[in-house]
């Protein structure tokens, strides 16, 4: 009897959610590089365990895994989250592996630096790896202050030899090198201030530590195919993001200045979103996005976005199945290089969501990082069951 009485009673949230998905990728053209497979099929899943205490503090664990028929590097698992959120009086502290997002623009995420990109999951950099962190957040009347201590570095993932959408040379992720002797144990720091004043949203941030995007260094070994070896350097990066709500327009700006031993650069993404509501005499909305991407390294930039204009169109039918059509175009203003992506998705029944995506990389000159993708125009179908 006493035992029963002593058991703690949790009358609160204890949740297990997630999804299982199947995906097929078809490529129209033959692969360019030896070892690459033509098409690929894969299965993935994510499980999130969430438990909230009476006080509002909570524990979250999220595990993601994928098995890919073609690319060994894409068959991988990652602990996306494993953290405890302590809710204080006027502050909160998240300890463990977590994920944060900074910024306002749609086509590039310059200021968003805390989490490493999961390069095998998406080419747009929007999928992230879990990052060990101590994250203190203090919302105040004059804005929110966020402080990060980031012990432990996550290396970027890259497609393997058999995968499509990769560089001509394979990135040898098992032999990454570091500028700092602490290598992946270097402790990074970040701080962010954000505030909303009327129609303005302001964000200021600074990061000090191991840069998330590596330099890819050519390495030749006798008897073996040459590879690219990721080299991670120490950087200082200051960022600003601004957003202005102006009626049907939302104006956006993200800019960073990054410096390291002996060099620096500045990059920016500036643009707007404009909305048309209730188009075609229906409940459908169209959102348009126009952004200009700039990088003062010009053609030396590792990113293909150094002087590019981007156009996005999002059609949402606002129907029961949440049908959506997204199109994106990136046009290089120096060359004829352009990338186009079209993505349609809708829900089937209560818990299945299906997405059909097509992408093409057109007219990239040899000097453009997208040149390596010229034969990788693709069609991808995904179906995910949510539980």
């Amino acid at each position, binding site marked *: 009897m006493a035992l029963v009485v002593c058991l703690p009673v949790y009358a609160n*949230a204890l*949740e297990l*959610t997630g*999804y299982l998905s199947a995906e097929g990728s078809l490529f129209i053209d033959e692969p360019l590089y030896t070892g690459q497979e033509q098409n690929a099929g894969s299965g993935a899943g994510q499980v999130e365990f*969430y438990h*909230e205490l009476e006080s*509002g503090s*909570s524990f979250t664990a999220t595990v993601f895994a994928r098995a890919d028929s073609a690319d060994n590097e894409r068959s991988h698992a990652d602990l996306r989250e494993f953290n405890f*959120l302590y*809710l204080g009086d*006027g502050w*909160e502290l998240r300890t463990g592996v977590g*994920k*944060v*997002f900074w910024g306002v623009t749609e086509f590039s995420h310059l200021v968003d630096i805390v989490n490493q990109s999961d390069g095998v999951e998406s080419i747009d950099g*929007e999928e992230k790896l879990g990052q060990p962190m101590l994250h203190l*957040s203090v*919302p105040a009347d004059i804005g*929110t202050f966020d402080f990060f201590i980031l012990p432990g570095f996550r290396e970027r993932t890259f497609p393997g030899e058999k995968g499509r959408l990769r560089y001509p040379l394979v990135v040898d992720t098992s032999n990454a090198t570091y500028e700092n002797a602490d290598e992946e144990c270097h402790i990074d720091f970040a701080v962010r201030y*954000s505030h*909303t004043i009327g129609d303005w*949203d302001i964000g200021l941030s600074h990061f000090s530590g191991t840069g998330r995007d590596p330099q890819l260094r050519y390495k030749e070994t006798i008897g073996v195919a040459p590879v690219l070896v990721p080299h991670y350097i120490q950087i200082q990066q200051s960022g600003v993001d601004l*957003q202005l*709500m102006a*009626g*049907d327009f*939302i104006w956006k700006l993200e800019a960073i200045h990054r410096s390291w031993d002996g060099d620096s650069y500045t990059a920016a993404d500036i643009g707007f979103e404009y*909305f048309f*509501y*209730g188009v075609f005499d229906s*409940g459908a*909305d169209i959102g348009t996005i126009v952004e200009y991407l700039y990088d003062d390294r010009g053609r030396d930039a590792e990113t293909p976005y150094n002087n590019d204009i981007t156009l996005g169109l999002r059609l949402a039918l*606002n*129907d*029961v*199945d*949440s049908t959506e059509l997204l199109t994106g175009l990136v046009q290089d203003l120096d060359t004829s290089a352009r990338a186009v992506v079209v993505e349609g998705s809708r*829900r089937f029944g*209560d*818990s299945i*969501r299906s997405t059909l995506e097509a992408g093409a990389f057109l007219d990239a000159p040899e000097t453009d990082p997208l040149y390596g993708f010229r034969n990788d125009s693709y069609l991808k179908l995904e179906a*995910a069951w*949510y*539980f």
Partner: protein
Amino acid sequence: MKQIFAAILIGGLFFTSSAVLAETPEEKGLAIATEADLRDKGFGDNTANLMMILRNRHGQESKREIRTKTLEVEGDGDKSLSIFDTPRDVKGTAFLTFTHKVGDDDQWLYLPALKRVKRISSRNKSGSFMGSEFAYEDIASQEIEKYTYKWIEDSKLDGKDVFVTEQYPVDKANSGYTRIRSWLDKAEYRVWKTEFYDRKKTLLKTLTFFDYKQYAGKHWRPGAMEIVNHQNGKSTRLEFSEYKFKTGLADEDFNNNSLKRAK
């Protein structure tokens, strides 16, 4: 007489005399809306669970589960947080809204997969809320200042003595309506029926309220609401449960951090 006494007790003498002796239909319409607002003042905060049932013209149903939290703000519109539990693919998606008496509301959307808070335009008043027949402006906090008013007549609805009033959106450019006609009972100033007329001035939707219950000895809330779109034959029913008042919510439960924490 009884009504007048009740109004005096709740609303104060000055206000009541203006409500009763209002001369123009516009003044009387505003007085009724003001009295209805006054009777719900002081709710502080509340939470509720919501089942949204979408029905197409063939009777096929689709359900969404939403939890809501609302905070009354002194001198401005309410703050509210809505969290989606189903459909599963949007689970954890949350809306944070700061309603303003004058000007555009502020609205943020939390996308759990990206951990991203996106500020969104609140101009889309006439847009469908999650594929339902409710527009954003139907579910937003109804602030007095967002409309002008007119009393039409005193009438009877299902045996209840009612005021029939009309309201007209101040933000004509973005509202989907030219007029909204409501039936309020004289006893408690609860809305039982509302008709929405579109920009072409034709009847678009009828909203009906059911099973009112009184909470904290003062605040009346419907157990269900059903809206029928006469033009497309679709309807949406909202069923409320677990209404709780004065749960101790405060400003810090309605900021970007709490939006990110919403589960």
